């Protein structure tokens, strides 16, 4: 497996940000909830995918829609497992990789510039049997593409998505978890960013009972840039967790991470862990990470932990910010003083809070539908009853 190539070139780091990974499921003990990486996750609600539940379920429909020059191949062997440098860092990821009976590989050919996005949709049809899935997205050299992953319906899903952005390629992956209320989705995404390549991840998590995304990125050459934009909305009882790790493994690389979330209702819980490691070799890099949470009602909890570890003195810029706030009374007062009802004013403020981020998505053909998705989510929730 290819991960060793890069690892060998780098110094060993004794960073807790960088747990030893392993493809061997047995190397990952069944978590108890006390482990650092599991301490926020409600294991009881994971339907035992973190332990030994079978992952052979087929209760879903997958669909694929792409321009003709995009290749989609199913590999019925293990050849693609770990192709992005992913080495599972937790038991669910290891199990999902080991038990996936095939890998779906989506390849954007070298130098192709796609005129429309690639859509991969997973629509769950039942939660009883858990499913393992493995998806590989490869943007070959100098290609330019947008891939939209949509998750809908009811399902118990453990998946790994491996993304390889080859030298000079520009890839945007927009992922939308718009699950039914009873879905459980625990997934690991790993992105390997090539020399001067650009990768953008837009990660939208709305539905589901428990949704946890571990998203990790590293760089196989200098000059690569990663932008991660996240938007989540947790309502009563929902757990949404994002664990990010950007490993600056090459000089002159960039990362820009902004996640925004809103919470409402009893026991709505969100977790955002933003880890950035800047290795000794990674001179002249720039990194920024930010997480903002808007707490709309009592009884919600937003955990937010940014973490920046720097092993070189030669960096261009590094910063992080994290804030959790309630509604700004001044904003609500201003809007209401113009006749707008309290509910409607709240809806506007939340809309604005997210809209700020949607404006940064930069995928013109998607911005409108994203805004509409956000509107629909807002209408369904708090904001039910507004106007």
């Amino acid at each position, binding site marked *: 497996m290819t991960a060793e190539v890069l690892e060998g070139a780098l110094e060993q780091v004794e960073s807790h940000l960088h747990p030893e990974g392993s493809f061997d499921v047995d190397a990952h003990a069944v978590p108890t909830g006390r482990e650092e990486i599991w301490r926020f996750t409600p294991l009881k609600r994971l339907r035992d995918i973190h332990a030994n539940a079978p992952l052979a379920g087929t209760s879903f429909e997958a669909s694929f829609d792409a321009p003709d020059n995009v290749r989609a191949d199913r590999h019925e062997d293990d050849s693609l497992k770990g192709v992005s440098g992913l080495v599972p860092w937790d038991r669910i990821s290891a199990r999902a990789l080991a038990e996936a009976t095939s890998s779906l590989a989506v390849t954007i050919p070298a130098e192709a510039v796609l005129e429309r996005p690639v859509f991969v949709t997973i629509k769950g049809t039942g939660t009883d049997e858990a499913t393992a899935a493995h998806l590989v997205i490869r943007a070959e050299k100098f290609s330019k593409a947008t891939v939209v992953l949509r998750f809908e319906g009811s399902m118990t899903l453990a998946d790994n998505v491996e993304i390889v952005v080859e030298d000079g390629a520009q890839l945007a992956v927009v992922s939308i978890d718009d699950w039914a209320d009873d879905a459980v989705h625990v997934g690991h995404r790993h992105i390997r960013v090539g020399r001067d390549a650009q990768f953008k991840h837009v990660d939208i998590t709305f539905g589901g009972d428990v949704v946890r995304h571990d998203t990790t990125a590293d760089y196989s050459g200098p000059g690569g840039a990663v932008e991660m934009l996240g938007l989540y909305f947790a309502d009563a009882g929902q757990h949404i967790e994002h664990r990010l790790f950007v490993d600056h493994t090459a000089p002159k690389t960039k990362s820009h991470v902004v996640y925004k979330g809103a919470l409402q209702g009893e026991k709505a819980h969100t977790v955002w862990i933003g880890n950035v490691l800047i290795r000794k070799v990674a001179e002249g890099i720039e990194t920024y990470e930010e997480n903002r949470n808007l707490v709309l009602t009592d009884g919600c909890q937003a955990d937010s932990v940014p973490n920046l570890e720097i092993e070189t003195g030669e960096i261009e810029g590094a910063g992080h910010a994290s804030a959790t706030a309630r509604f700004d009374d001044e904003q609500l007062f*201003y809007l209401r*003083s113009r006749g707008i009802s309290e509910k409607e004013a709240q809806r506007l403020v939340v809309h604005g809070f997210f809209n700020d981020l949607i404006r940064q998505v930069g995928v013109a053909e998607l911005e409108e539908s994203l805004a509409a998705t956000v509107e629909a989510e807002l209408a369904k929730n708090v904001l039910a009853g507004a106007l």
Partner: protein
Amino acid sequence: MSTLEIKNLQVSVDTEDGAKEILKGVTLTIKDGETHAIMGPNGSGKSTTAYSIAGHPKYQITGGEVLLDGENVLEMSVDERARAGLFLAMQYPVEVPGVSMSNFLRTAKTALDGEAPKLRTWVKDVNGALDRMKLDTAFSSRSVNEGFSGGEKKRAEIAQLDLLDPKFAILDEIDSGLDIDALKVVSDGINDYAAREGKGLLLITHYTRILRYVKPDVVHVFVDGRIAESGGPELADELEANGYEKYVGTQAAGV
């Protein structure tokens, strides 16, 4: 005929050391067609008066009444007051990131009228209001007040006054931070509004400068949470010449 009556209004704010009394009994009546000016030194309670009438949650009303056409305004929520016909142009308009001016204005107009404005004429109305305030129409797609200069914020407040067309408008230091050209533009906007049928205006200011362009019928001098003196426009001229010393001095002597 409409009337805004403020009767013996007493207001305090919560501070770390308990409630602090700010307004100590303010009484004044504005009839439609009238323009009143409140003038007073920093910290005398001018903004407190404005915010209390509009219903800002920070201020506790400890006594007195505010009636709009006989209706008790103090029992209404903030947005009900606006729908009853009150408008407050704020000294420091608030930024609302991600909410476009056009979305905000349309939502407000819809709330005030109980129905959405006609799309075609509305866009024209918005552009016209911005244009009269010498604001580029691009402002309608910008977030509410976000990144506006101080003067642009004030002009945007008057554009809102124009579009939302309330019965009574309270303008809190609309003149501060305006250069002379902007002051004229804003004053024209205020005068256009005041000339409409059945409108009342309360103009709060620290300086007499704007009163050269917007002519008040009545001037109130505000000192230490009370109206110290009321008079005609000539009172403003006297303040221009002598400042607030006379009043502040009286107050100091009284302590």
